[in-house]
């Protein structure tokens, strides 16, 4: 049945093009650091608007979109490509078809995304939220997405493993949705739909990036690594399918919840709110499955860094899943929309959940990719705690700031706008501290991975047969 076990997989290790995956992940590491640095610099500007002087390339608006695209596309998407090139061969039992195409994808993605990022600083933003790269970057990006999607499809068509494991569902669907969605959001919508319709469809695009790209990629990783690491079969396969269909059915409808109370048709907004409620379902199915799969393996939490990150991500996913539906309610929107509350939510999901899960996966596969054991457990520990503490600081201050500003603007009268800015500026200062810790955590991680590849102890018989004790 649907059991992906370590034993079944390790025999097929040679189907993975290790160099390719390594390259992808290295490139993702670069954007992880640069993207987060962009975030920290932006956050300093909240308290010191004159920070970095008056250079157009480093103006607030430009750095802010540089940060967002740097982490969403530079880091997460690049890592997802790498992970797909790892998981798809493992789950199909064959090498990727057209091995050269993989390199075309990885290289051209590296070049194109770098150009995209630089063009944002140079002032060529397209003005589409989460799709700011200009149109001449969007065209090759769409082609790259189409290429890797096709490649995955053909690999699956030729697969040796009869069963299509749930991760493959998420991967293929996620890649297909995203190819279509990227074209729709970046090449069609901004040029053919005006005003209110443009906003509605852009909400749809934006939410499909988070719901039909980042979420399925992260979920695919979770469903893959959870059973492999714990050596337990997935708790319930049926549940994972329910989650998948819930996602496919409800996510696309939620787009308009980004523009509630705007001139977008009220019934569209109402559907968006209702389907936001329904999203509890796919989230809970993932969480239930995770908890179920951990059964009897909770002791690994103290010794395995990958398990730590996986469980932490799940805890944050539970919070996301309560927060998202509540904040879609109209009464809640009055207060928290347009405030830092939403920024806190976005980081909770993308950083707190999916970045954590990606890290869990990388900690697990890095020794396989490099043939060396993780260089330093101390650094992994620092990575974990800096990320957790830094993020807790950041999330709490953002939510606090959102409530304070939203309350002042919407519940009190006679408040000058600037007074709300002054009221939350201490929160922003603390947020910078949190963000810096998060970045340091990521730096520990990247350094650790780099050193592993260079000087880590070689993987030996002991490591393979007795992984648990070696890899803390």
């Amino acid at each position, binding site marked *: 049945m649907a059991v992906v076990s370590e034993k079944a997989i390790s025999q097929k290790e040679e189907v993975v093009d290790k160099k390719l995956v390594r390259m992808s992940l290295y490139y993702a590491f670069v954007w992880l650091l640069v993207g987060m640095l962009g975030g920290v610099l932006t956050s300093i500007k909240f308290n010191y*608007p004159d920070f970095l002087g008056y250079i157009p390339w480093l103006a607030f*608006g430009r750095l802010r979109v540089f940060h967002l695209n740097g982490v969403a596309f530079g880091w997460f998407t690049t890592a997802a490509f790498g992970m797909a090139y790892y998981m798809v061969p493992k789950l199909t039992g064959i090498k990727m078809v057209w091995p050269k195409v993989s390199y075309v994808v990885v290289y051209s993605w590296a070049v194109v995304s770098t150009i995209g990022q630089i063009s944002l600083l140079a002032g060529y*933003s397209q003005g589409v939220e989460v799709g700011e790269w200009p149109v001449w970057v969007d065209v090759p990006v769409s082609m790259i997405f189409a290429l890797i999607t096709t490649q995955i499809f053909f690999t699956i068509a030729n697969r040796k493993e009869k069963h299509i494991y749930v991760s493959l*569902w998420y991967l293929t669907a996620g890649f297909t949705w995203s190819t279509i969605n990227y074209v729709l959001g970046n090449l069609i919508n901004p040029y053919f739909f*005006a005003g209110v319709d443009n906003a509605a469809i852009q909400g749809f695009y934006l939410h499909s990036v988070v719901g039909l790209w980042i979420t399925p990629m992260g979920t695919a990783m979770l469903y893959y690594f959870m059973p492999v690491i714990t050596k337990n079969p997935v708790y319930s396969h049926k549940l994972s399918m329910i989650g998948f269909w819930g996602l*496919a059915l409800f996510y696309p409808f939620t787009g308009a919840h980004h523009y509630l109370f705007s001139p977008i048709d009220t019934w569209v907004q109402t559907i968006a709110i209702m389907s936001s409620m329904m999203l509890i379902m796919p989230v809970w199915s993932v969480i239930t499955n995770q908890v179920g799969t951990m059964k009897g393996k909770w002791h690994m939490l103290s010794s395995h860094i990958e398990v730590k990150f996986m469980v932490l991500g799940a805890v944050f996913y539970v919070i996301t899943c309560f927060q998202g539906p509540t904040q879609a309610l109209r009464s809640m929107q009055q207060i928290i929309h347009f405030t830092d509350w939403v920024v806190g939510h976005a980081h909770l999901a993308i950083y707190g959940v999916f970045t954590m899960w990606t890290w869990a996966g990388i900690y697990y596969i890095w020794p396989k990719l490099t043939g060396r054991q993780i260089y330093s457990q101390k650094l992994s520990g620092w990575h974990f705690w800096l990320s957790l503490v830094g993020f807790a600081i950041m999330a709490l201050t953002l939510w606090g700031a959102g409530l304070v500003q939203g309350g002042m603007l919407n519940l009190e009268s006679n408040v000058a706008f600037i007074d709300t800015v002054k009221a939350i500026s201490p929160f922003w200062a603390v947020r910078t501290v949190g963000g810096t810790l998060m970045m340091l955590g990521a730096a520990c991680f990247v350094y650790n991975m780099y050193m592993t590849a260079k000087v880590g102890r070689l993987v030996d018989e002991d490591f393979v047969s007795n992984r648990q004790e070696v890899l803390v």
Partner: protein
Amino acid sequence: MSNVTTSFKGAMLGAGVGLYFFAFFVGYAYPAFFSKHDVPKVKDYKGNIVAVRGYTEQEKLGKAIYIRENCWICHSQFVRPIGGDEKRYGPVSQAGEYAYDFPHTFGTRRIGPDLAREGGKRTDGWQYGHLANPQAMTQGSIMPKFVWYFEKKEDGEADITRPTEEGKALISYIQRLGTSIGDWRNPEGEKAAGSTVAASAPTFTPQMVKEGKVVFEGNCAGCHGLAGNGQGPAAAALNPKPRNFTEGKFKYPVNAKDSDLFKTLEIGVKGSAMPAWKDSLSEAQRWAVISYVRTFKK
């Protein structure tokens, strides 16, 4: 058997992708084609249906710059029918007002105030002074200084009296925002004089003067200068110039009493950069700042 499952699974995947299109057509494409949002017509503030005019070339350039600098990251562009929105920004936004927007700039965060009804709220001079140096206009602002939309003075500083073509275009776009519904700030028939309540001035105390100083330095000094001489950092861009309080002369009316100044503060001075303060300063703060303004007279 295996082939059957494979094609079954393929069909299921097709269904998954189909759901995306299903949602797109029901929730987004259908309203786009049938709800007629893109008809450039709105109800003006008097309730008549009027046409919205397209952007001029200059405004188009202005919007492109608005997008280039990602102003929409900090400024939303729709007034909601809830909360403090209407009172703070003006009439609720209507679909027709956006009919010419490719792409839209609704925004999702208000790090600064909503700009949907910004047009006509301030004079061009105020806008230029603010664009080059927001902190001079609003103490404590965190908006960046967009100095590269101005020619440079000898000393390398931005000259707020000489915006570049792009700077002019940006402000022309800002001044157009929300004006499709007519001049709603100055409804016909009502005198711009505004306040109907004739306020009577309290007696000024040293305590009030002290509080007034704080209010003045935070809100007024950018234009009127710390010394009250009308030479604040933003003054150069303004016409008419901010009042020089050291002369002790006023216009509205000449020999304005404290209650006249109170009214001026409430409604601002139309046709000048002098803003209305009724929504951002309490009555007590307004009296306090007047008591402080009176102290400048030599």
